[in-house]
C-alpha cells in the first residue's frame, strides 16, 4: 500500500518533469526570431512589450512569476496591482459569503421540501427550470436590482451554489430510513428533536455531498464573475494580466485557482468523512 503510493508519487513527479521539459523545448527562442538593428530599437521604443510578446512564455519565465508573486503575496499598490493573497482573499470572501447565504436558505428549505412529498412535487418544476441556468445569466438582473458589482458577484455565487445543496438536502431528508423514523415515532420524539437528532445526522452525508458540489461550482463561477464585474479578485487578476499580455502571470493565476479549488474540495471531503456513518 505504501510502496504503491510511493510509486504513484514518483510517476507524478516524472510526468511533471517531462511536461516541463517538453514545454521548455517547445518555447526555446528560434535563431530567426532574434531581432537586430532597427527592429530592436523599435521594440525598445515599445517598452517592455518586446520581451513579453516574444511568443508563449518558457517555463523559466513562469517560474520567475511564481517567485515574484509568492515572495510578496500581501502588497497593495493601487487598484490594479495587488498581491496574489489579497486577490484570492477577495475571491474567497465572495465565495464564502455567497455560499453561506446559500446554506442558510438551501438547508432549511431542502428540509421542508424533503419532509413533504407534496412540496417536493410542487416546487420541482421551478427547481428543474432554474437549476440549468448559467449563474452568469443572472448577472444583468443582479446588477440592475442590486446596483453594486461586488454584491452582484456574491449573488451569483449564492444562486449557483443553492441548487445542488437544495436538491441534495431534500433528497437526503426524504430518503431517511423508515425504521429510524419509526423508532422516533414510537418514542414520541418531538418534531424539533427528531429533526436535529435523527433526520439531520441521517441526511448529513447527502447534504455534505451537495455542499461539496456547490463549492466546486462556486469556485468555477467566481473566476468568470470577477472577469465580468472587475475590481478585485483572482478572476479580475487573470483578466487584468491578459490585458497586460503577461501570460506568465496568467499561468501563475491558473495554477493558484487550481490549488485553492483543490484545497476547498479537500476541506469538504474531510467534513464529509466526519459525518459519514457506517451501517
Amino acid at each position, binding site marked *: 500500500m505504501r510502496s504503491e503510493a510511493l510509486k504513484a508519487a514518483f510517476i507524478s513527479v516524472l510526468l511533471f518533469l517531462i511536461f516541463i521539459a517538453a514545454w521548455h523545448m517547445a518555447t526555446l527562442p528560434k535563431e530567426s526570431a532574434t531581432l537586430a538593428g532597427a527592429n530592436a530599437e523599435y521594440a525598445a521604443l515599445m517598452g517592455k512589450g518586446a520581451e513579453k510578446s516574444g511568443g508563449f512564455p518558457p517555463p523559466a519565465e513562469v517560474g520567475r512569476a511564481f517567485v515574484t508573486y509568492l515572495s510578496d503575496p500581501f502588497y497593495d499598490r493601487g487598484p490594479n496591482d495587488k498581491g496574489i493573497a489579497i486577490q484570492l482573499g477577495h475571491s474567497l470572501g465572495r465565495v464564502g459569503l455567497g455560499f453561506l447565504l446559500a446554506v442558510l436558505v438551501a438547508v432549511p428549505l431542502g428540509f421542508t421540501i424533503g419532509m413533504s412529498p407534496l412540496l417536493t412535487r410542487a416546487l420541482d418544476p421551478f427547481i428543474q427550470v432554474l437549476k440549468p441556468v448559467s449563474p452568469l445569466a443572472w448577472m444583468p438582473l443582479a446588477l440592475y436590482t442590486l446596483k453594486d458589482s461586488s454584491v452582484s458577484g456574491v449573488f451569483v455565487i449564492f444562486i449557483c451554489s443553492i441548487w445542488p445543496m437544495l436538491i441534495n438536502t431534500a433528497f437526503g431528508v426524504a430518503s431517511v430510513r423508515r425504521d429510524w423514523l419509526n*423508532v422516533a415515532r414510537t418514542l*414520541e420524539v418531538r418534531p424539533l428533536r427528531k429533526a436535529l*437528532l435523527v433526520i439531520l445526522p441521517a441526511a448529513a452525508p447527502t447534504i455534505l455531498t451537495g455542499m461539496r458540489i456547490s463549492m466546486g461550482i462556486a469556485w468555477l463561477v467566481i473566476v468568470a464573475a470577477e472577469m465580468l464585474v472587475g475590481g478585485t479578485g483572482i478572476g479580475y487578476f487573470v483578466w487584468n494580466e491578459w490585458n497586460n499580455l503577461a501570460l506568465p502571470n496568467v499561468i501563475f493565476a491558473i495554477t493558484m485557482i487550481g490549488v485553492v479549488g483543490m484545497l476547498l474540495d479537500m476541506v469538504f471531503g474531510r467534513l464529509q468523512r466526519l459525518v459519514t*456513518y457506517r451501517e
Partner: protein
Amino acid sequence: MSGHFLLVEGLKKIFPAGGNGEANPPVFDDIHFHIDKGEFVCIIGHSGCGKTTILNVLAGLEEATAGNAIMDGREVKGPSLDCGVVFQSHALMPWMTVLGNVVFAVKSKWPDWSRAKAAAHGARYLEMVGLGEAIHKKPAELSGGMKQRVGIARAFAIQPKMLLLDEPFGALDALTRGTIQDELLKIVQATHQTVFMITHDVDEAILLADKILLMSNGPHAKIAEIVEITLRRERTRAGIHHDPQYYLIRNHLVDFLVNRSRTYAGIEAEVFHDAKQPPVVRPGLEGQPALVRTPPTEKPVPHLKQVINH
C-alpha cells in the same frame, strides 16, 4: 369492559388498491384476541397473513381499516411510549454509539433527566443484555446478534407497559438466536413484562410463550386457534425438549402450519369457525392420556430443529 390488559376487537386491514383500481381483499379481518398483564404471547402464521401489520397497529405505526385495540383502558390511536418496539432490522441509529442509542430512548421517555442519570440508566439495561463492555462502540462494529441485543435493551430501557417484538431473531444464526432467547427469557421472567412477539420459529414460540396465536393464511386471515403452552413457566432451552408435553405441542403447531392453516378462510374454508372466540387448545395436556394408554406406533420424533420460514 373486561379486565384484560390488551383487547383487540374486530381488527381488519385492507391495503389501498394498486394501479388497476380493483379493491384488494382484506389481508385479515375479524381479528379478536386479548393479552393479560405479564403474559408472553407469540403469533405464528405464514407470510402474508398480516402479522406485522397487527403488530404495527398495536404500536400505533399503522392504522387498521376497521376495529380497534384497547391497551390498558385506552384505545391505541398512535405511537406511544407505552409500547417498546424491537424491529426486525434492529433499527439502531448508526451515527450514535450503542449507549447513545439507548440514551436517546431514555431521554425521550424522561426528558428532564440529566445526561448522567440517563446514561447510567441506559448502561444498566445494556449490562442486562450482556453488552456492558461494548457501550461506547458504534453499531457498525457489532455483530448482528449484539445489535439486536441493543434493540432489546433500548425497548426495555423505557420500561414500557408492553413490549412488541417483530421477528427479532429472524436474521440471526441458530446459535446466536439460542443465546439471546435465553437472555430474553431470563429478563422477561424477572420483570414480568407483557410481550407480544411475531416469530416463524415454532421452538422459539414454545420456549418463550404463555400462549400462541395461530393465524390462518391471508387474505381474510383469522386467528384460527389459541394454543396455551402448559409447560412449566420455568423453562430452559436446554431442558425443554425432555418434557413430554413439548413434542405434543410442537407437532400440533407444525401440523397447523403445514396442513390446516389454509383451511380457515375464503373459498377453501372447511371448518366452522367463530372468529370472535377462537378455540383455546391445550395440546400439551390433551395428548397425555393417549400416550399413556397406547404405545406410540410412530418412532419418537427425532430431535431436529424445524424452522418454518417461508
